[in-house]
């Protein structure tokens, strides 16, 4: 055990995800040995993030203003909404440059075992957005695990009566993988979603 401020710093760092006691100690000593200006910059950035960053009132993505960059952009197609679990997923899809519509961030997936039901997610806000008659298609891009699938099933059940086209991201074999290691569910879905070669 160290004394006072050093131990406090190690304890605080140790609470961050993926940081164990050894890593916390290493980072703490790095900070102690760093230049004052570097540490001040880090402190400022941390404070600014907490003060400025909030959630977009429209889609729930992280932003520094009322509306996020994507929701404000008039070139984005407002008739398409891609539903994702986290803000991180928005970034992943943006990197593909395939999607030119807007997003809706749910803030997680339905997981009754963890006490998370539809009420705890931004599903009601999504339904309010869907009341807009211009919306032509909802693309459900929740994670391809069981919680994501169950969330998708719930959303499909809620949206279908509204007469809006609903699609789900395709799932199948990863590029660069080996067929022999594919599990039954993935391989089964890859067969289900196979395409005709022209």
């Amino acid at each position, binding site marked *: 055990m160290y004394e006072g401020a050093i131990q406090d710093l190690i304890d605080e760092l140790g609470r961050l995800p*993926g940081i164990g006691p050894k890593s916390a100690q290493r980072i703490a000593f790095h900070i102690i040995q760093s230049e004052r200006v570097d540490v001040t910059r880090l402190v400022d950035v941390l404070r600014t993030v907490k003060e400025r960053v909030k959630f977009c009132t429209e889609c729930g993505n992280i932003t520094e203003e009322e509306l996020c960059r994507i929701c404000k952009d008039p070139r984005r197609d407002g008739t398409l909404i891609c539903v994702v679990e986290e803000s991180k997923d928005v970034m992943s899809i943006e990197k593909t440059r395939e999607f030119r519509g807007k997003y809706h961030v749910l803030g997680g997936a*339905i*997981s*009754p*075992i*963890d*006490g998370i*039901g539809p009420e705890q997610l931004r599903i009601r806000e999504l339904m309010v957005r869907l009341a807009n008659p211009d919306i032509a298609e909802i693309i459900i891009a929740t994670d391809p*695990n*069981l*919680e994501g*699938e*169950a969330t998708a*099933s*719930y959303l499909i*059940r809620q949206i279908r009566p509204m007469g809006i086209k609903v699609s789900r991201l395709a799932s199948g074999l*990863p590029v*660069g*993988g080996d067929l022999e*290691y*594919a*599990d*039954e*569910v*993935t391989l*089964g879905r890859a067969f289900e979603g196979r395409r005709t070669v022209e």
Partner: protein
Amino acid sequence: MAVYRDQAVVLRTQKLGEADRIITLLTREHGRIKAVAKGVRRTKSRWGARLEPTSHVDLQLYSGKSLDTVTQAVSIENFGDRLSENYQHWTVANAILESAERFTQNEHEPALQQYLLITGALKALTYESYDPSLILDAYLLRSLSVAGYAPSLSNCSVCDAPGPHKFFSLVGGGSVCNTCKPSAAPTPAPESLELMSALLSGDWAAASNSELRNRREASGLIAAYLQWHLERGLRSLPLVERM
């Protein structure tokens, strides 16, 4: 025993570090265990969908100090793919998984009966053998029974006077007679107690013919009885969609 093999149902998964998960398993021979599945969250993971909640798998594990590590996994039956397509079934499956975890409190303590119960319940739920709500209630009652908390549904649970009796006591352990009843004991319909009896003994013909109001009453009694014995309720139970 460095490397061992067992069959298991995946009860719960938690994220660990960058791409790993801690998998809670209910195994046939080793009871409930926690194991690390390395790299399972990567898209190119060799585990794929095998280690998702509700998966029934044949595993090879390497025992470690606090957590074991999954080294190989082969699907026996993949319930999750079908269960997650139906939201109601998914909520029921979650309640089953959570109660299995709660009923097996000590890790590495063999719980063969619990294992057989959960595989049976998930199979019945996946293949829609009976009404999902009835499957859940039957599973909960039988889990209570395996744990030694089977409610008495005919004789008085306090003095053993032959029943049926009018009153039901959570504290007493089931039906109670007029003299043994605590104050403010509920008085369920006799048909609801008969339904509970049928679910406990596996008389599905009688259970499937029961009326909706009796099913609702029995579900309420079972949930309250379960909460009394587990000390705190299941988080997933209020989120279960009942018809």
